[in-house]
């Protein structure tokens, strides 16, 4: 008898988990930077359109914000996926969830990169 444990799907789970955790640490670091910089750079924070434009002219800022976005989006999607896993989806449902997460992730990151470039170019 096999018990009720599923046959392990070739070490699935560890890399996604490790990625989630390492990105979490990266976010913890970057969020401090993102927050401080966003609130201290301009007088009272980035509260006008012009402040934001000027902020993105600083070298390295766009890259930092994009890196931050990538970490956050991937961490959030993997965390949401974990919540879905607790709903015990079928194999087919899980494939749909995985695919959906991938599409959302790529879309969000692409949107962020586009937006950053638009602002940096103004």
């Amino acid at each position, binding site marked *: 008898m096999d018990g009720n444990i599923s046959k392990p799907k070739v070490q699935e789970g560890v890399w996604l988990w490790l990625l989630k955790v390492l990105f979490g640490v990266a976010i913890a670091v970057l969020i401090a930077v993102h927050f401080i910089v966003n609130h201290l750079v301009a007088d*009272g924070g980035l509260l006008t*359109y012009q402040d*934001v434009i000027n902020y993105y002219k600083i070298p390295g800022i766009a890259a930092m914000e994009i890196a931050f976005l990538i970490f956050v989006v991937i961490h959030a999607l993997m965390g949401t996926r974990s919540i879905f896993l607790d709903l015990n989806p079928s194999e087919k449902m899980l494939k749909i969830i995985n695919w959906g997460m991938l599409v959302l992730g790529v879309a969000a990151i692409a949107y962020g990169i586009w937006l950053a470039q638009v*602002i940096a170019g103004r």
Partner: protein
Amino acid sequence: MENSPSSSKFMRWFDPRYRQVGTWAFILNRVTAIGLTVYLVLHLFMLGKLAQGPEAYDSFIALAKTPLIKFGELLVVAAGILHGLNGIRITLNSFGVLVRYQKQIFIILLILSVTAIAYFAYFMFFLA
């Protein structure tokens, strides 16, 4: 059969009755995670207003200064601090570090978080 594990029992995650500190930490982590994800979507959407030009962005910022929105932002800060600190606790534990002190560490980080959140609340509502 009744009483078997089932996905219909999913919402029981959020029931902290009869459970210990570790479960409280887990529930808090999940609730803040969901809150932060919702905020992420809203934030990305809000930043899109930058592309629409100064009028769109600046009028949104005017909205953001209303007390309701500011309170929402305070919740986001609270969620970020709690989720971040608890996440570090979970990361450390999962590498075998300080597992035996997980309860104490959670209590400490809770105190730190409440202090930080109070500080932010003071800043946001009485100084800004």
